[in-house]
């Protein structure tokens, strides 16, 4: 009964979607507001990656809100799982012996790849204003390195305090640079540093600094999420 009703609802929604999609031509030029970003982006922000200049300069305030959503999700996860942790510890002591040791291939591969993955993620978020990538993607790669470590050494965990300090510092740098922009240029998150020469690494003013802060923030946030979920499942 429920299946039939839901299929009817889905058919109605599908009809609506088809009506809507048929009005949107695929692959045609529909750029309206972004024309300004594409034409003036490099000279106004110094970043050759227009997506980065949209994320951190034209819509930097929006990104600050999104980073806050991420932060609240990570905190919420910690709060939801925290309540039972003390009870869990007692049970886990005899369970811990049952955890299988990771295979030789996984262990050796992780030990070799871990620094390289960290290096690659750093490259991704330092070059956010020059090449495809940026803080969010680099942070996800950063966390994937720690996920590999957790798969190999499930009994160990990262230092909670220092990771939360790094995470908070990332957010504080973002807000602090925004406030410095308010002091020096009169707008929150204004690009007050010199723009430099486009296509060089020291260009685009505040954009690389904010992206490095976001990279560490996202990386440590996802690592702490993985840590919390794993600790719960032990």
């Amino acid at each position, binding site marked *: 009964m*429920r*299946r039939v009703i*839901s*299929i009817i*609802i*889905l058919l109605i*929604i*599908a009809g609506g*979607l*088809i009506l809507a*999609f048929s009005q*949107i031509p*695929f*692959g*045609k*030029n*529909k*750029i309206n*507001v*972004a024309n300004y*970003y*594409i*034409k003036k982006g*490099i000279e106004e922000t110094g970043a*050759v*990656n*227009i*997506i980065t200049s*949209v*994320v951190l300069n034209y*819509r930097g305030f929006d*990104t600050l809100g*999104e980073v806050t*959503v*991420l932060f609240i*999700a*990570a905190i*919420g*996860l910690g709060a*939801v*799982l925290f*309540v*039972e942790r003390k009870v869990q510890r007692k049970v886990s002591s005899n369970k811990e012996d049952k955890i299988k040791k990771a295979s030789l291939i996984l262990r050796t591969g992780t030990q070799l790849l871990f620094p390289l993955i960290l290096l690659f993620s750093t490259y991704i978020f330092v070059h956010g204003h*020059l*090449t*495809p990538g*940026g803080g*969010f*993607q680099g*942070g*996800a790669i950063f966390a994937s390195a720690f996920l590999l470590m957790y798969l190999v050494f499930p009994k160990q965990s990262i230092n909670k305090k220092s990771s939360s300090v790094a995470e908070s510092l990332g957010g504080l740098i973002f807000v602090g640079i925004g406030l410095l922009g308010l002091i020096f240029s009169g707008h929150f998150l204004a690009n007050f540093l010199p723009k430099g020469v*486009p*296509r060089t690494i020291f260009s685009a003013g505040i954009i690389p600094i904010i992206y490095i802060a976001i990279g560490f923030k*996202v990386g440590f*946030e*996802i690592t702490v*999420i993985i840590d*919390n*979920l794993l600790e*719960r499942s032990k």
Partner: protein
Amino acid sequence: MNFLFNWMYYFASGGLILVGLYIVLVKTNLIKIIIGINFIETGVNILLISIGYIKGRTAPIFSTTDINPADVVDPVPQALVLTAIVIGVAVLALALSIVIRVYKHNKTLDVTKIKGLKW
């Protein structure tokens, strides 16, 4: 054939959204419902990217000087999806943590058997 090629991305995103909605409406396992919500999210992301796409144009990154500004796709949807993906991961993790708590409390993942969810 040409028709299919032109509308492929819309079909894919619409299909993902509908599959996700079907899972949310019909399945009773909480983890399956969350995976359905993730399907909807992926569909919406693909939809945003494919609306911003313009045929024959390249990514809006002027890494060399010979890229013409009239030759790039719309950067705004890509900027939106960029942050939406990472937020999706965090929200998915939050939802799964709530599921862990619900399972501890009720010893079941079936929404029809959890009394607190009935009205």
